[in-house]
């Protein structure tokens, strides 16, 4: 009798636990179907999953891989041009190397966004494009002749910014003089160029289906947790956009230093193509958002996923702001370091338009796509 009482008491207790009742979506067709739910609470959400796979496929195969491929082949060309120049130091060979570098700098703008997976593991962005470069260290390394360019500790004096310095820091005549008189300088130039190609090639190989096939992982990892492809992509989409806003424009303009400008901190300061690179960067981010492939076909991108999630108003806000930002940035002439001094207002307008997009993509878009921003920034503007 007592046992029965106790058993009954136990069972009663199970029902007594308030709020422990399982409410949720009871429709097995829904994404958030919960097999344990006893009662439907109207929370069912239907499948965007298949569409998400399409988005990941279009972005992975139509955008990311082709961009890395292009970067990789440009770096082969650049490296060849550097070798040619170092074998025969003359103005023609210098000009070829300079042009190849500019092309590589432009191509990098469209790869910088993908700092997750293999790129993050290898800290590719830091290895390729840590600007402003540390010119003091570069000169030190050249004169000492001792350095390990593959190390992470070398990111301050390697990559594109180091090449930009080495190939553009003086007039061409002076450069030829410097390289002709210093074998160490030539060796360092070749080292940086070769290492740059190695760094990018390594990540590209990790991505390729004929290599380590990260592309397969990327297009098949759905969900919205912090390790999902969508979350990684959205995070870096934001991070790279903020790099554009802060590192490429805001900091040189003095936005983070109480108005004191630092024009020499612009990207590609020595070659003077900073504004053009910023435009390339914005275009790359825009194309990624819309899913526009490298061959120019408008496939599925984050924009289309937003539409699929039924948020037309947000997508049109984002579109409108992208247009304003692109237009404002188009009117900023190069070299940016000079424009910052001569016509700061025009740069400021571009900065403000670029900034306005952040609140949409960093908060609303993330909420809508159910991903969270996991990087922290010390952005004090």
């Amino acid at each position, binding site marked *: 009798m007592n046992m029965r*009482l106790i058993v009954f008491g136990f069972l009663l207790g199970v029902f007594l636990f308030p709020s422990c009742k399982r409410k949720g979506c009871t429709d097995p067709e829904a994404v*958030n179907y919960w097999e344990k739910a006893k009662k439907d609470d109207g929370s069912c959400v239907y499948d965007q999953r298949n569409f998400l796979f399409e988005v990941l496929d279009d972005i992975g195969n139509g955008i990311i891989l082709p961009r890395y491929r292009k970067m990789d082949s440009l770096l082969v060309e650049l490296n060849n041009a550097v070798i040619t120049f170092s074998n025969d130091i003359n103005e023609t060979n210098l000009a070829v190397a300079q042009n190849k570098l500019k092309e590589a700098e432009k191509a990098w703008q469209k790869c910088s966004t993908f700092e997750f997976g293999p790129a993050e593991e290898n800290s590719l962005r830091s290895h390729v494009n840590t600007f402003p470069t540390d010119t003091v260290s570069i000169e030190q390394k050249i004169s000492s002749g001792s350095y390990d360019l593959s190390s992470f500790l070398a990111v301050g004096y390697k990559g594109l910014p180091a090449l930009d310095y080495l190939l553009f820091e003086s007039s061409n005549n002076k450069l030829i003089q410097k390289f002709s008189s210093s074998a160490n300088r030539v060796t360092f130039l070749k080292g940086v160029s070769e290492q740059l190609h190695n760094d990018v090639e390594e990540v590209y190989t990790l991505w390729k289906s004929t290599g380590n096939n990260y592309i397969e992982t990327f297009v098949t990892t759905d969900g919205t947790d912090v390790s999902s492809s969508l979350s990684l992509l959205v995070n870096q989409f934001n991070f790279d956009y903020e790099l554009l806003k802060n590192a490429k424009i805001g900091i040189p303009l003095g936005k983070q230093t109480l108005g004191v400008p630092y024009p020499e901190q612009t990207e590609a300061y020595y070659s003077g193509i900073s504004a053009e690179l910023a435009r390339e960067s914005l275009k790359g981010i825009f194309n990624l958002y819309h899913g526009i492939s490298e061959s120019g076909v408008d496939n599925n991108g984050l924009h289309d996923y937003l539409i699929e999630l039924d948020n037309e108003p947000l997508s049109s806000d984002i579109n409108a702001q992208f247009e304003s930002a692109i237009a404002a940035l188009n009117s900023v002439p190069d070299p940016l370091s000079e424009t910052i001094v001569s016509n700061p207002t025009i740069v400021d307008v571009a900065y403000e338009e670029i900034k306005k997009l952040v609140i949409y993509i960093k908060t609303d878009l993330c909420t809508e796509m159910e991903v969270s921003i996991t990087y922290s920034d010390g952005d004090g503007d």
Partner: protein
Amino acid sequence: MRIFNLILFLLIGVEVFAGNKISGKVTDNEGNALPMAKVLLEQTTFETYSDESGFFSLENVPSNTYTLVVFSHGFQKKEQILVYDGGNLMVDIQLSPIELQLKEVVIQEQKSNDFGISYLNSVEGTAIYASKKNEVILIDDVAANKSTNNSRQVFAKVSGLSVWESDPAGLQLGIGSRGLNPNRTSNFNTRQNGYDISADALGYPESYYTPPTESLERIEVIRGAASLQYGPQFGGLINFIVKKGHKEKPLDATVRQTVGSYGFLNSFVSLGGTKDTWNYYGFVQHKQGNGWRENSDFNANTGYISVTKSCSKKLSLTFDYTYMYYLSQQAGGLTDKQFEENPQVSYRNRNWFNVKWNLGSLKLNYVLSEKTYVTSQMFGLLAYRNALGELGRIDRPDPMDNRDLISGNFKNFGNETRILHRYNLIKGMPSVFLLGARYYNGNTLNQQGEANDGSGSDFYYLEGTSLYSDYRFSNKNIALFSENMFTVSERLSITPGVRMEYINTSAVGEYRADVLHPNTGQVLLEIDSSENKQSKRNVPLLGIGSSYKPNSAMESYFNFSQNYRAINFSDIKIVNPNYQVDSKIKDESGWNADLGLRGKVKNYLAYDLTLFCLMYDNRIGTVMKKDTITYQTYMYRTNVGQARNAGVESFVELDVLKAIGKDSATVGASIFSNVSYINAEYISSMDASIKEGNRVEYVPEINVKTGVSLVYKKVKVSYQFTYVGEQFSEATNAEKALSTAIQGKIPAYKVSDLSFHYSYKRYGIDAGVNNLFNQMYYTRRATSYPGPGIIPADGRNYYLTLEIKLG
């Protein structure tokens, strides 16, 4: 409402008995009357004391078979089986004084009676434990590597505990119950001999000092229902009770020397005894080792002294002092790849941690009358901890720059005073009333800044640099609490309770928020800001429990108690200007409910089964917000969501030989099983990436500990197997590990431990192997110290302890 339904329901099933009585006289073996001897019927609430002439009587006892237990100070405990079927039963009890040669007999009795785990009586001292889920770990019976406080073994029989193994040699204890985070045991109210030992009981409830297991008599664990009497934490109370001096002898000493793998050395010496009205106990312990991993050597010293003066039969005073200092090198975290390659390798050799703890307490016990006790305990802490090192991403090499130093200085003191009164509300039904008050004043100085770029344990800030942050936190807390155990019938008791808390938390400080270049990390601008925040609030907590004992060997208990976790200092501290704290941020709040059944089947099976639900509301977290006027985004710290942990905790232990009717004084065999299932999930969140139904981080669904003990004469061999299911390390439930290794799953793991004990006269040997099959596993992915990254648990290691008792 629903709770009252249950109580009503339980009431209806209870019969009321007419007055019957068991009475008798307690004497010593020469026939002299023994007053103040405690007389009780085991597994019931019937208990009394003998009067001046040694007489006692227990009234209104229902017919049943009982174990009558009688004990008195200085005498051997006596147990006697009583078959009582009504009427007036007379039992005379003779107690024998404790004699030294009896000791071995006593030990043998314990061997066959004790499972290494026990439960608190309904009322002990000035505390009411009736109807609360609790466990008492009897350290003498625990098969464990006591020199390293191996918490996997020490807490093996406490159901549903998660253990973090991130520290060599048990320097820090990391346990959590019911899916609560085990980080430095911060979800428990942690005490030693009844007083707080954490850095700040409310604002920084981290445990840096763990009382050495070798010095302990027992560990009491009370789940969430402890909130009313001890403090509001969700996890409940964990109370380490240090041994007392020998009750008869003036000097009794124990020397233990342990050697182990990886240079482990542990020396422990304790002295204790009783002289006249003084009882004392003290120990010193020195511990050192190189650690299982590279760069993880440690050196720790602990000392303790306790003196009790019995001023009269009614009044005693106890003074305690504890000192601890340790220095340990931190091997840092690992990425998933590094862990796969070799978990013993370390990629950081400049990280250090040191801790100094000074604890003091003065406790007064006063017997106001036969029915009324008073205890008042004053306690204080002077302590610091320093963490020094490079905390950057573990997938990148140490840049060999200046290191970070984070230092905390803690000063706190308090008093807890309780009065307990026994009375009869209904004739013959002893009720117990408890009233308590607590005052707590905690002050923390928290600083962070740059230390040198060397690799030594140089715990000082670099000259000429300004601190990153410099904060003074304080907590003033006043609590009044009361519980009353109403004995409604001889089978049913109901214990309602209430606690009123007043808390005043303040944070005053300055911080330097450098604007860094996102590419180069170069400092673009230094911004110095200051802050002065204060939050005063009153928090009422309610709870009710009921205990129903259908017979002397079984108890079913129910408890509902509210809990909260006060806003921590780190919750309100601002670290950068893009960070805002909700001005109306609330304490995290919720409740624990237990429904359990525990007892014994004859003398061979012990069990405790509990259904529980822990509701955790107002969880504090950070969400991204936007300002549409300035077009800025910022991090906003506020109460973001709600989680619910529900599950089953079970513990069963079987004495195999007794079960098959082959009781023997020389041979014993027992098995135990401790299995818990916890379903912990988010039920709401402001953060869209933490979805409803997402599993709460660091909660394995399945947690199993099981073991077998074999005894032959004075040899005991125990084997323990632990299985912990897969866990997520963060709330979005990341399936894959990222390269920084701070997010991702924690795979399920299995560990085995083997221990051996032998005693001969005054000598004892403990030996064993921890992680017998050398499993490579980890229990956490640290986001910061002691990582960041995967913190591997130790691989196989051996130990050997020799013990000599002197005096």
